[in-house]
């Protein structure tokens, strides 16, 4: 689809992974949260530091340095491959071929943050992310990494014994099958009226073109059950 920003990557097993790059807003929220966490950590330690004198100040300066440059690296190399902020907003860092991020790439993308930050307030990063379909900042470009949305769990549909399976009245190509099943999966989240409206759009599959109403909806859902594999 033209609007879709999906990046596909093929694995050695011949699977095609679909990666969904995270856009500017999601990454901004994650960054803001990480920033707040770091700030809170520095504030909290500042209290103990005042009691420790020179050694404490040294520790604090080293902590500032470590948080500034290595906070993202350390978290990106854990199993979650995301800083706490990214994790909260369901993001993670991967290589752009779908593999887990490597230490070398994680280090480079975070050191190149200094270039992304220029000319001020992450100007180049924002510029690059808005221009590119895969929303990479400069560090991501050089390190061949990608910030993606964690795949969300798909709503499932179960056998519904109240609804009789109905054979579709026309051959259904995979995309159409998927659409009918997706409609059935959304039943719990829709109001009855909206469901009827949507089912009316798909009424052709059960041979009810041009009609609408709860009866037609049941027949369309019946086709969904048939496509699932129920025959009686």
């Amino acid at each position, binding site marked *: 689809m033209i609007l879709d920003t999906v990046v596909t990557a093929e694995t050695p097993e011949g699977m095609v992974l679909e990666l969904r790059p995270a856009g500017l807003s999601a990454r901004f929220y994650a960054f803001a949260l990480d920033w707040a966490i770091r700030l809170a950590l520095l504030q909290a330690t500042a209290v103990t530091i005042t009691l420790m004198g020179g050694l404490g100040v040294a520790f604090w300066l080293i902590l500032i340095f470590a948080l500034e440059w290595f906070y993202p690296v350390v978290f990106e190399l854990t199993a979650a491959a995301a800083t706490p902020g990214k994790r909260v907003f369901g993001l993670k860092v991967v290589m752009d071929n779908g593999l887990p991020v490597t230490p070398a790439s994680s280090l*480079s993308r975070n050191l190149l943050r200094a270039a992304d930050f220029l000319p001020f307030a992450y100007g180049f990063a924002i510029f690059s992310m808005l221009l590119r379909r895969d929303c990479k900042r400069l560090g991501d470009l050089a390190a061949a990494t990608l910030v993606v949305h964690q795949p969300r769990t798909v709503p499932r549909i179960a056998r519904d014994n109240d609804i009789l399976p109905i054979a579709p009245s026309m051959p259904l190509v995979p995309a159409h099958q998927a659409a009918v099943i997706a409609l059935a999966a959304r039943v719990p989240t829709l109001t009855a009226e909206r469901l009827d409206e949507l089912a009316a759009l798909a009424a052709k599959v059960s041979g009810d073109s041009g009609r609408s109403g709860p009866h037609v909806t049941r027949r369309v859902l019946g086709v969904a059950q048939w496509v699932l594999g129920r025959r009686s």
Partner: protein
Amino acid sequence: MTPLQFEELYQSDWDELQATLNLMLGRTAGISVTRSTFSSARVATLYRRTCGHLALARSRCYPSYLIERLEELTAEAHQVIYQRREFGRLWLKQIVAVDFPVAVRTNLFFVAVAAAVFLIPAIVTGVVMYERPELILSMVSAETAASFQEMYSPTADSIGRTRTASTDWMMFGLYIRNNIGVAFQCFAGGLFAGLGALFFLAYNGAFAGALAGFLTERGLSSTFYSFVATHSAFELTAIVLSGAAGLKIGFALVAPGRLLRLQALVQATQECAVLLYGVIVMLLVAAAVEAFWSSAAWLPASVKYGTAAVCWTAVFAYFSMQGRRAN
């Protein structure tokens, strides 16, 4: 086979794979697989089998929820199975003993350019400041110039320490925070066609040269040079090396050769990683030496110059000889 039959037939495989992944990722949800029944070979088998199921499900146009579930499962398994665990002792040894010095030698061109861009402004401003020390005021304020003089005066009980810093430990923190940041800037600046790296190298070179020229003219050369001689073996080399890494990625963008610019950039960045590992370690060493050894006023200058000579020789010997046999 209908989707439901397919799901019933292979459900147990998928559940087992999911449970194993949960165990490997430290999650507790789902059916429990205990460590005793866990085997890597089993994970690989289940993973390949599930990949096969996914291909079947796609080619048979099974419902999207089934395909998406299998996609999700295989994608997660893929992430776990291909996770790189490279931080072992062997990895560390390989980098220190072979990869880092070899990387420096293979990128000798960039190292030489970076060294020249750092040293030439340093020498020029050094000579200028020595001839006309009042020009230091065009670079820093009068107070800063005065504090430099104070920091390196022979009567100071600890050399190179700012008046606000009370201990060596505090200076250690300051050096880590500032100096390593400078080196990282030199690298990151390379992303702008190398211009940023050139600028930061020249700027820091000019500043260091100006300071040296100014303090020499003021007659503080004995404290200043004995202070900088030792740790500069690590610090200046590391800054030059990170500048060289920056120049390398900048050069890849300007002259990508037979690759696309983006491919050339990615390749250069990957090759720079080992340089960066080395640079970080060198800068940590430099900060420790600077804070605890260079600043010690009670050490006679001759001891410091002796150590400095050993350090410089060791650094040059390391970069020119180490790892030749392994390669």
